[in-house]
């Protein structure tokens, strides 16, 4: 029987999981399930077997038995619904009618064994007669609680558009009728070691300070960073045109591979203005790389991933290491006007860190 196939499996599953914890069809804490439990308990209570002119009823239940019976009843309702909808769909209808339900009930075999194949009229089927008889005989026990309409649907509140809020879209390609951007709360970032801007700050006034010895450089930047506060809340600095030409810098970079202490002075003056911009557009793994870099002991062989990489999204050999190819390897998603400055300062910083980090890693 269909009932057997569906209910048996589910009930056995129910028993193995424990009621309400398996996350299966019925859950113990489900509102509908609890209501169903109460209803089933009512029904069981009203069942009476007449013995010697005296009605004998159940006086109490085992909890697991009640849960099982509730699960079976719920599954029964769902089976009726499914079968009735199936019959309606087969007949080309969307909504079921009473005949579909009667057919579904007959399919589930609820007609106390009535299986009259010749019966062409559903009204004549045993199940309907049984149900009619039942309503006539059984006592009417209405449900005790007044139920709210459930499930309660929440009214979805649309987020206001730009025009509703009165704000202007930040970019011209965004129309005013689109929802406004959420507020960006700049939270405090926990300082887990020197962050990118602090290290860059340390380059102010000459890289010599940093490049003396990598170890001391780290610790000095660490102290500085804590005093400066949250760099993300710092006021943005204006961009300054970088006069350094890339070609010239390349030559210098190649020279600097050899000598640690050879610092191109012309780069340092431009660092200050570009630090916040750089930091704002650096991806998080760039910052993390810096942190790792600063925390680790200088001069030791580090894994490739710890080295600074301003190239977004790659963990391969960082392009900043490839000093020769550093110009085209760097990508930024800021507007084009700032790109040049960024590229230049990235190269500077990349080169700085390479130098600071000089060791077997820098082998290209």
């Amino acid at each position, binding site marked *: 029987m269909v009932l057997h196939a569906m209910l048996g499996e589910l009930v056995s599953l129910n028993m193995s999981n424990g009621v309400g914890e398996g996350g299966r069809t019925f859950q113990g804490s489900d509102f509908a399930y609890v209501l169903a439990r109460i209803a089933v308990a009512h029904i069981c209570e009203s069942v009476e077997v007449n013995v010697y002119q005296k009605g004998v009823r159940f006086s109490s239940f085992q909890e*697991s038995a009640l849960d099982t019976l509730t699960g079976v009843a719920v599954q029964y309702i769902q089976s009726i619904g499914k079968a009735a909808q199936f019959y309606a769909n087969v007949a080309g209808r969307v909504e079921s009618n*009473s005949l579909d339900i009667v057919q579904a009930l007959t399919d589930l075999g609820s007609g106390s064994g009535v299986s009259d194949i010749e019966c062409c009229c559903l009204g004549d089927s045993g199940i309907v007669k049984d149900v009619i008889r039942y*309503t006539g005989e059984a006592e009417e026990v209405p449900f005790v609680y007044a139920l709210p309409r459930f499930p309660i649907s929440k009214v979805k509140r649309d987020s206001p558009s730009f025009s509703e809020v009165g704000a202007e879209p930040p970019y011209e390609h965004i129309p005013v009728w689109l929802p406004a951007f959420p507020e960006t709360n700049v939270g405090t970032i926990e300082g887990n070691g020197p962050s990118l801007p602090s290290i860059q700050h340390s380059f102010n006034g000459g890289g010599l300070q940093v490049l003396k010895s990598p170890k001391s450089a780290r610790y000095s930047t660490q102290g500085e960073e804590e005093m400066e506060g949250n760099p993300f809340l710092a006021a943005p600095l204006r961009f300054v045109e970088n006069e350094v030409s890339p070609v010239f810098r390349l030559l210098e970079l190649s020279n600097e591979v050899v000598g640690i202490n050879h610092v191109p002075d012309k780069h340092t003056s431009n660092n200050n203005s570009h630090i916040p911009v750089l930091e704002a557009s650096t991806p998080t793994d760039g910052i993390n790389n810096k942190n790792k870099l600063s925390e680790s002991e200088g001069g030791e062989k580090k894994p490739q991933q710890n080295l600074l990489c301003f190239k977004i999204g790659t963990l391969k050999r960082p392009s900043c290491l490839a000093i020769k190819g550093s110009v085209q390897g760097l990508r930024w998603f800021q507007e084009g006007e700032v790109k040049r400055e960024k590229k230049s300062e990235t190269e500077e910083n990349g080169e700085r860190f390479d130098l600071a980090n000089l060791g077997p890693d820098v082998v290209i």
Partner: protein
Amino acid sequence: MNHGQQSGEAKHEDDAALTEFLASLMDYTPTIPDDLVEHYLAKSGFQCPDVRLIRLVAVATQKFVADVASDALQHCRARPAPVVKDKKQQKDKRLVLTMEDLSKALREYGVNVKHPEYFADSPSTGMDPATRDE
């Protein structure tokens, strides 16, 4: 042809009985509330705005549960009564719906419920104490 006509008439009559029953359903309040039944029917994809059909399903389910419960009650009563120590004591036991009776009753309806006999919280539960590794 006559038979066809006759069955046709019978059909109409029985349909009328169903229709009449549906109309009378509005007077009868099933124990299972309409909202609950509607919720579970909606879960399985059943769509119908007619309240009478919801009540029909509710009544059918109520009948089903009542049948199962009555069978379980009969199983419960049919079980041999415990030994009566005192002859004067009436056979007035309190009937409890147990898993045992319920599983017997449900089996007739095609639902197999097997309840574990005891709760085993360790692999050695139920074993002979002498053979346990402790």
